[in-house]
């Protein structure tokens, strides 16, 4: 009984790490996705500087998501990684290009356009691959014994492509609303305009994803269309519309923080929706949370430190955000 509880606590912690990753790196990937919107070097500089002090901490949540899965659900990790081989490798390569662009961009004049491209292209690749990986996971992973037994291209389907576009559109929305919050002047006005179509695109793709998901697995269908869990089917879309309304309201009334916070809430809701479908699976339709869990000794040992360290991490991360609060000063930067 105790072991059962531990694995569920851990599923919650991993879900929290992944959600935190998605909303934090989501907006800084989104900022990169919006780079082509302006050709002006100064404007690109402030866009990048709005995330430069925090992006590294944001991306660390991805390492925690992967590392945490390895630590407490090694079987799930061992099954999912080979199944998503290509999107994972492509995502990593994308993140390599984008990560180095933060420094390289300032170290060259002639090659600056190249690193701008790397920043945008790397982020686009990473965002698409993360969405595709999510879609592939939702549609199910084939397992025989303790190993992945599906095909090489199983991850590539119309459904996973739609998920990829949905996540990318959502990240761009997060990036645009973040820039509305952090910048002033011409770029801000531009982002405020862009946030409208991006919100609509995010809503449309969320709707397609949500309507499609129940038809990829019988159990999802049951979860969303039978009592009592069908209650989610009514409430979640209602809340989504409420949040989208919040984005529009904030944009129209020049409340700079509201659109960003409402866009974050949209992601939380989408994530909750996926959680509702998945439970109690970790890798549908093959592994439940319990089956994939490491022995109790591993779960307990890791949990002790995690319960101390995660609040500490959240505290100093919040402090770092506090230090760099307010609008970006175009003159500032360490480069």
């Amino acid at each position, binding site marked *: 009984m105790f072991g059962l509880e531990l694995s569920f606590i851990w599923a919650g912690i991993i879900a929290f790490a992944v959600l935190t990753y998605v909303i934090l790196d989501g907006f800084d990937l989104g900022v990169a996705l919006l780079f082509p919107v302006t050709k002006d070097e100064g404007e690109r500089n402030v866009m990048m500087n709005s995330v430069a002090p925090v992006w590294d901490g944001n991306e660390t949540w991805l390492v925690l998501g992967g590392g945490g899965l390895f630590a407490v659900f*090694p079987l799930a990790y*061992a099954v999912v990684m080979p199944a998503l081989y290509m999107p*994972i490798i492509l995502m990593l390569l994308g993140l390599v290009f984008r990560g180095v662009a933060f420094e390289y961009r300032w170290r060259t004049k002639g090659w600056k356009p190249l690193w701008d491209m790397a920043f945008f292209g790397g982020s686009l690749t990473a965002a698409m691959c993360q969405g595709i990986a999510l879609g592939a996971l939702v549609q199910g992973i084939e397992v025989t014994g303790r*190993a992945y037994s599906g095909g090489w291209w199983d991850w590539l389907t119309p459904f996973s492509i739609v998920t990829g576009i949905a996540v990318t559109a959502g990240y761009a929305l997060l990036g645009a609303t973040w820039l509305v919050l952090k910048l002033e002047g011409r770029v801000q006005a531009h982002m405020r305009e862009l946030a409208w179509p991006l919100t609509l695109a995010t809503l449309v793709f969320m709707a397609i994803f949500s309507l499609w998901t129940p038809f990829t697995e019988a159990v999802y269908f049951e979860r969303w269309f039978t009592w009592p869990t069908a209650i989610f089917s009514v409430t979640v879309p209602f809340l989504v519309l409420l949040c989208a309304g919040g984005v529009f309201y904030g944009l129209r009334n020049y409340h700079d923080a509201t659109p960003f916070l409402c866009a974050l809430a949209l992601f939380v809701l989408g994530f909750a929706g996926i959680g509702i479908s998945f439970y109690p699976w970790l890798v549908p339709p093959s592994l439940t949370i319990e089956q994939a869990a490491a022995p109790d000794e591993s779960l307990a040992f890791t949990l002790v430190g995690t319960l101390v360290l995660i609040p500490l991490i959240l505290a100093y991360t919040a402090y770092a955000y506090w230090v760099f609060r307010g609008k970006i000063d175009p003159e500032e930067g360490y480069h």
Partner: protein
Amino acid sequence: MPDAMTAELLARIQFAFTVSFHIVFPAFSIGLASYLAVLNGLWLWTRDEAYHTLFNYWKKIFAVAFGMGVVSGLVMSYQFGTNWSVFADKAGPVVGPLMAYEVLSAFFLEAGFLGIMLFGRNRVGDGLHMAATAMVAFGTLLSATWILSVNSWMHTPAGYGINDVGQFVPVDWWKIVFNPSFPYRLVHMVLAAYLTTALVVGAVAAWHLLHDNRNRAARRSFSMSMWMLCIVTPLQIFAGDQHGLNTLEHQPAKVMAMEGHYDSHPDGAPLILFGIPNSEEKRVDYAVQIPKLSSLILKHDLNAPLAGLDTIPEADQPPVGIVFWSFRVMISLGFLMLGLGFWGLWARMRDRLYDAPWLHRAAVAMGPAGFVAVLAGWITTEVGRQPFTVYGLLRTADSLAPVQAPAVAASLIAFVVVYFFVFGAGVYYILRMMAKEPTPAARLGLRDGPVRAAGSVAAHDDDQNPAMAE
């Protein structure tokens, strides 16, 4: 594709390639983070402008190196799953928690405070900025601690049991973390990181001294780096010797390969200085050797018997040639570092530390020696533990993911192309930054006011001027 290129071989090449690229950056950034903390502390304490100049100079280089370390490390953390998923499943319950602790306690700390260290001095003030710099340095050391604990456990597994599905399960965490080779490996690696950084800092300083030996910042950093070399190199040689004895106790086959001992020596083994290991004939060709010395070094007794590879089943033997040579590269560089350190000491005693062009040229030449030694050392220890991933318990061949050779080949090619391009560019930018003299902001005439007024920090760092962006 030739048949010999199996998925296993390709996956091994891929791991070796990505980890070799990765190790270079932490080796540099562990040392550099501590150096930055020391420089920042000395500046706050003495208000000597040279320290401030050096801090700002190395800070930018650190940022580029750290960025490369982060992205190449990210790749590593996922590779256990993509290419070595059987290892991940089996060793995950033991290895995974240690890596999770690395992320939670160290990685977040570095990443969280890096922003404040790089961009925040004017926002948080000197005290908190110092604290952030110290946190980054502490984070890099903590990170090394966890990673070396994991790595050491794979070499000298302890505190585990094996369950009914063949997974390693933790029995005693204390024994797992503090496994027999961990303390030796950790000390050896951290000292190696400090030496690597000292050599780079020394080379850059020497380069600038050769052009202008009155540059105060260059003088200061050259002096610091020479002190570091002559103090740390002897410590490192001692630590390396202790590590070797530990390896002999727990992984004798590795030491046999390092020493080139194909045969057992019942009455004292010679030290083979040079030679060409011939694994077909099971002997070292053209060997130059000193009788009995190997026994003296390893057993502290001239006539102590020493077992050879003939006592190890063929299937469990590591490849001798690579281990033999990489070990010699590391040792030779270690002694060259010692020589440079003592040369520096001698020049200092004669009061010619800043006026010794040949010393400076030697220091420039030795700049990359730390990286080469670190890589050689890792090759020695990692190739030397083959054919196992978990020593004696899990074979490399049995750790592989169910992936096909073309997939691993494609991703390997992608990594090679991207790494050479991306990290090549990074190294180029770092070298270009190093080619610039460390100069205090005031001398460049970029600012109107005095460098500091009444002991307070100037409002803007030199590097915040757009003219310096290049």
